[in-house]
């Protein structure tokens, strides 16, 4: 005589399935998202790190839009030791400012800025009458439009400073035969009566991620501003 175990298996499976289903419901429960500044970020090599790298890694791992104003030193930036109490974005920013008191950080409408206090900017405080970008596909493309505004060009001429070559960087490319981003959703920016820095913030805010880095350098007989997206 053969005894079929199938119903026993079904009963067991039903029970386990119910448990598993219950677990998945518990896992997908509504959880209030943490404030951006309380997000965990990953930074490696705390014993020896530049401020620019610490900020880049924090923005990248925390997936937080932001921007940094770097000093215009001609030499490479010094590496510093950060003493971080925890790995929340807020603590990382606090530790950066503690290690480099010439910086201050601010958070406004979802965007974090780390600013070198003594920086005398030729462009960041410039008032922009109106800045509009429709369906931009890349951060660089939006910055391109910003740099082509007449008041920006005029200001650069006034202060006799040029824009250094913009680094294009890597891109997130679809794995298709064409790799084309034809149906990728772009982002739009529309703002008026803002400073140049606020316009940069609007770009990364609209994109949902990314971090710009701005510096003015007067090195080797050249007067240049550099604006790159160090996180894209």
């Amino acid at each position, binding site marked *: *005589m*053969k*005894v*079929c*175990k*199938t119903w026993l*298996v*079904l009963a*067991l*499976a*039903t029970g*386990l*399935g119910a448990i598993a*289903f219950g677990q998945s419901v518990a896992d997908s429960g509504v959880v209030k998202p943490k404030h951006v500044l309380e997000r965990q970020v*990953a930074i*490696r090599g705390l014993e020896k790190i530049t401020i*620019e*790298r610490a900020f*880049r*890694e924090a923005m*990248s*791992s925390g*997936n937080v839009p932001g921007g940094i104003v770097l000093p215009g030193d001609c030499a490479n930036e010094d590496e510093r030791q950060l003493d971080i109490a925890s790995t929340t974005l807020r603590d990382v920013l606090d530790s950066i400012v503690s290690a480099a008191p010439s910086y201050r950080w601010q958070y406004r409408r979802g965007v974090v800025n780390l600013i070198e206090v003594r920086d005398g900017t030729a462009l960041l405080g410039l008032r922009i009458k109106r800045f509009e970008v429709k369906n931009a*596909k*890349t951060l*660089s*493309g939006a910055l*391109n439009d910003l740099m*082509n505004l007449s008041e920006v060009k005029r200001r650069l001429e006034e202060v006799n400073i040029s*824009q*250094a*070559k*913009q*680094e*294009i*960087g*890597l*891109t*997130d*490319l*679809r*794995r*298709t*035969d*064409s*790799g*084309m*981003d*034809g149906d*990728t959703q772009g982002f739009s920016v529309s703002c008026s009566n803002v400073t140049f820095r606020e316009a940069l913030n609007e770009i990364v805010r609209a994109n949902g*991620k990314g971090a710009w*880095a701005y510096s003015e350098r007067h090195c080797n007989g050249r007067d240049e501003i*550099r604006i*790159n*997206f*160090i*996180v*894209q």
Partner: protein
Amino acid sequence: MKTIRLFIMLVFFSCVFGAIDALAGNVYGTSAVIYDYANNRTRGYSRTQVDYATAEYYTAYVCGELYKDGVYQVRACQSGIITATIYTQYTGTSATGSVVSDHYVDMKYFDEEQSSYIDYSGYRFLPGNNYPIDWFFYPAEIFGYFPVSIYLGSTYNQIPTKLRFIHTPPRAPNGIGPEITVTNGDVLDTAGNVKLSNQCGVYRNMAYELVDQQDKPIVVAFNITETFADYSGVDSVPGTLSQSISAGNIVGDTQYMGRTAPTCLGTNDNESFTQHFMVTLGGKNHNLTTVVSILRGRFSGTYMCDVAITTP
């Protein structure tokens, strides 16, 4: 003799679980490495899971083997009903951990001399047996048991190791596109998006695929950071940039040297450097072996943008 038709069981499963798949004969193998920074431990995670129908006749069994920077550390095994899971670990988190999981199912079949239990999941048939037309099967009970451990295969955790060119026409056929010179035009990236406008210079598009230690593509989301070294040229070494890559996507790159029109490069404005990469995945940084050598700009008046992977 009591018989049950398999399809009835499948229908019943479908009713109970709705959208949950109830496939007979599937076994799922998992390998992962977890860096526990708080406790300074690197843990290997190995799991073999059979589906519910398979579990009636098979016991899951898994062995996990943990490596530290490629050097063997520990191996351990575990069996279980439906799921077998084993953790392995070593102290420290700075090295790169890798785990290889060997997945087994332990099968028990019976033999009553006249007929034999049919392995309906297809792992192994008894000699001379095939699926019966009406898919009857006979659960094992009182007749002779013959335990057999069937090795199904191995899985491993993927470690980001290198980039390789991937065919992405029209802008990067075979991974690397044509050299494009612009006098007052747009610089497009590999996807065809405008990156810079009103440019005078030269550029080239590339497409890379991230692969693991066994040259298999990595299709989860990751962050990639490019750094530059060995710079020689009229400008300055490019800055470090990071890019997030979505799950399933590949890495595009555009190497451009030029100026905003109407200014163009001088007759011998050029530069050369090497490009290096670091991938952040699961909170762990991995330096890729890949080194790309780049030569771009204007050489005795001729525009040129050469890109070559010099170290795979």
